């Protein structure tokens, strides 16, 4: 307990609440039926629905990626036309970025875990939370409308004047879809910020906040501040498209480079919206599976905020060849290197956490190791691209494509997989097949490197991105990459198989299968409708593995404090403590 708070108030009576291993009431049994799910304001159900939606779009966009890689098997046409290819890579990028990466960790896993780690019953604005899900769906519908009205082939960056020049209805639909989607992101961010400030359980002071919460906090700030700029940019683009107002199109008196500034002002911070929540997951998993206090808590927590802040000031590094001013280019390059430092600090602190730990290489931890390796490569190649003269050579080549996939897939997606496997028992109450999970993790590691390492080489040799045809000398690299993508595809199918199978025939999960000290593990698996059937009281940090488990299972001794009385406490231990 916070001592000062305790002094002001009367002494809190706490007692131990050991989570039941055989919960009769869970959020899955409390509200059943399709209608109950569709109208639920429960953050856990909303998180799961987000997860399903994200998985759906990931499967779709991943399938497109396989099609693209297949087309690139030969230098000329393999099986689809150039126009189709151009539409497919646009769709792959737009879906992966806007429908998968941005919402994946915050809206799916974050929604489920954040209130539980705070000991709250729900997020601060449950209805807004549900609204954000429906806004997401509305954005998706617009994107499919874009496909129905002839598709779009501008690349996910929508650069003008190509996107405003005779590209018709498709571009308008999809950009409006992204516009709508942005509000879902803003609502989630607002919700998280408020929840973190206002709904922490007694005793969760800022220095006892799980690092996952710090990461989501930093992410939410970026979401709330950056997304409106994207919305405005897209509105301007639509005005230009529909009403021929010259903003970005030089034929109408506009400036195409201005669009790039606006676009990257959002889209650069957006990559931190995608990766920073991943950092949070890594911190949680690495501590749990090393049974050890996280090394450099404040370094990791504050570096997330530093990244969020500096991340706003580096957008121009996407535009070194665009013709922006020389002064701007210099400043952006300089700031870009600064944003690399907090990221490096995190990696070093995580590795230091392993030192003298008790390391258990379960699947989530395996993914953390994969993350640390792949994301480091992503970081180093980012340094390469931040260097002005080298970027001139590498810009818009496969080197950039590879770098982006190393940070977004090797980083965000691998972290998502780590988190998904880590929290799966909590979310579903079921254990997955550990052996299959390990095999698929290794397959992902192999397939991923096989797909994207060759792209660094051919990119540096000059292979431009977004090419349907390519010159013969790049064939071996493209073919290796294509085979790698098939391995990745198989690995993801295995994951889908054993996760779905675990729902039906998986072993029942204990409440805390990894013996974590995290608060979310002190609920039943799956959790109660209100997460905990008591108000949790926290007296230790979330990574204090040197303290006994009993100290992490405390709650207010006065029953139905803020809860309805009908929810009987699960299993009451007789131990009573004073904090």
């Amino acid at each position: 307990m916070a001592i000062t708070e305790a002094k002001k108030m009367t002494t809190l009576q706490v007692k131990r609440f050991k989570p039941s291993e055989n919960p009769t009431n869970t959020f899955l049994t409390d509200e059943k039926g399709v209608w109950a799910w569709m109208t639920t304001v429960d953050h856990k159900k909303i998180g799961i629905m987000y997860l399903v939606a994200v998985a759906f779009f990931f499967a779709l966009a991943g399938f497109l990626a396989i099609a693209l890689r297949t087309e690139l098997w030969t230098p000329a046409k393999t099986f689809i036309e150039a126009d189709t290819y151009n539409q497919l890579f646009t769709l792959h990028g737009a879906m992966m970025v806007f429908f998968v990466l941005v919402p994946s960790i915050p809206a799916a896993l974050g929604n489920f875990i954040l209130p539980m780690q705070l000991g709250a019953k729900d997020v601060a604005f449950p209805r807004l939370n549900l609204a954000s899900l429906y806004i997401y769906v509305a954005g998706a519908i617009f994107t499919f409308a874009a496909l129905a009205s002839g598709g779009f082939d501008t690349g996910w960056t929508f650069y003008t004047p190509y996107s405003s020049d005779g590209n018709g209805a498709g571009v308008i639909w999809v950009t409006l879809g992204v516009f709508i989607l942005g509000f879902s992101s803003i609502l989630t961010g607002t919700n998280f910020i408020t929840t973190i400030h206002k709904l922490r359980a007694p005793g969760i002071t800022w220095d006892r906040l799980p690092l996952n919460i710090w990461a989501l906090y930093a992410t939410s700030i970026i979401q709330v501040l950056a997304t409106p700029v994207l919305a405005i940019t897209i509105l301007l683009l639509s005005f230009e498209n529909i009403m021929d107002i010259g903003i970005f199109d030089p034929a109408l008196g506009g400036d195409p480079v201005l669009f790039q500034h606006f676009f990257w002002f959002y889209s650069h911070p957006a990559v931190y919206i995608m990766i920073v929540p991943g950092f949070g997951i890594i911190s949680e998993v690495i501590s749990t599976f090393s049974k050890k206090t996280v090394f450099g808590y404040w370094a990791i927590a504050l570096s997330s905020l530093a990244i969020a802040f500096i991340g706003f000031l580096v957008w121009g590094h996407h535009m070194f060849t665009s013709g922006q001013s020389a002064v701007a280019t210099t400043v952006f390059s300089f700031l870009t290197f600064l944003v690399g430092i907090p990221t490096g600090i995190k990696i070093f602190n995580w590795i230091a956490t392993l030192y003298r730990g008790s390391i258990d290489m379960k699947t989530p931890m395996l993914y953390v190791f994969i993350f640390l390796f792949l994301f480091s490569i992503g970081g180093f190649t980012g340094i390469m691209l931040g260097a002005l003269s080298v970027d001139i050579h590498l810009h818009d080549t496969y080197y950039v494509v590879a770098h982006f996939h190393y940070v977004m897939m090797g980083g965000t997606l691998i972290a998502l997989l780590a988190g998904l496997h880590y929290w799966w028992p909590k979310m579903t109450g079921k254990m997955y097949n550990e052996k299959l999970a390990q095999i698929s993790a290794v397959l992902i590691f192999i397939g991923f490197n096989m797909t994207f390492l060759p792209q660094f080489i051919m990119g540096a040799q000059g292979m431009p991105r977004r090419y349907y045809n390519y010159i013969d000398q790049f064939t071996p690299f493209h073919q290796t990459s294509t085979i790698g993508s098939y391995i990745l595809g198989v690995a993801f199918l295995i994951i889908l198989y054993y996760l779905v199978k675990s729902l039906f025939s998986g072993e029942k999960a204990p409440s805390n299968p990894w013996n974590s000290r995290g608060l979310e593990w002190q609920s039943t698996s799956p959790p109660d409708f209100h997460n905990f059937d008591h108000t949790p009281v926290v007296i230790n940090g979330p990574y204090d593995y040197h303290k006994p488990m009993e100290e992490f299972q405390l709650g207010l001794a006065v029953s139905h404090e803020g809860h309805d009385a009908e929810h009987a406490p699960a299993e009451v231990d007789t131990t009573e403590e004073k904090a």
Partner: protein
Amino acid sequence: MGRLFDFMLPDNKSPLTADSTDGLFHFINEVSLIFLVGITIALIYFAIKYKRKSEDDKTPVITHNNTLEITWSVIPLLIVMVVFGWGYSGWLNLKAVPNDAYEIQATGYKWNWNFNYENGAQTLNELHVPKGRPIKVVMQSRDVLHSFFIPDYRVKHDVVPGRYTYVWFQAEETGESVIFCTEYCGTSHSDMLAKVIVHEPNEFEQWLELNGGGIQGTPVEQGEQLVSLQGCQTCHSIDGSPKIGPTFKGIWEREQQLTDGSTVVVDENYIRESILYPGNKVVAGYQNVMSPYEGRLSDDEITNIIEYLKTIN
């Protein structure tokens, strides 16, 4: 030469623009490799050495270490500051065109490059340059964004409609190098290739003289040269096969069905309108992707093109 990551880069054929870039590329790769190997070894070593022995393992409480934090913040900071300075100076060099540079005008449009020389010589997708002399290519775009990239010289710049941009290089060996468009520009973006052809200085003078004075001959001959130089054949065949646009073969007085269902007979006025405002009457079965040539061809040039089209049967 003989660096570990040499295999990643194409031949360096313009040392004045490529040397600094290559040096930095190798430096970053080598330092990164050292870090990556260190990280990987630490990960594997810790995973083995500190493998969990039992669920009751006790771990020490090590919360932080300020010396370590400062060390691993400051050392990378110093390294990236070196990288920044190195990249910056290399980039300044790429921006600073030598005074005696030979200037060539380039125009990018969907999906070709035109090059124009001081004496009126014009080429399509072939950039002829002399060896051992700095070359400045001044670029403009007629339609959307393009980007001019010569991997062998490590130079690249976007080609932006409504403004001029430039790159410079100095080729030190004769031969050919590929030019890519690296900013996505539509259907045939990946076919928007050109090549640099580097001549000995005296050969280049001869080539220039031979091609000087621009387009000459009878109206039909001039039209043929225009059609070839303007890259019309990227999209319009002369042998009857359909490409991105309808074929020129037998086009004269052909009856064409349009996308709106009406038909036109191809005459002087239809050809003129289709060159200047291609979106007005699009032939059925084709997309409206052609760039308007309004302001880019004179009336006489259009007349010559029409005279040439009449002859393709």
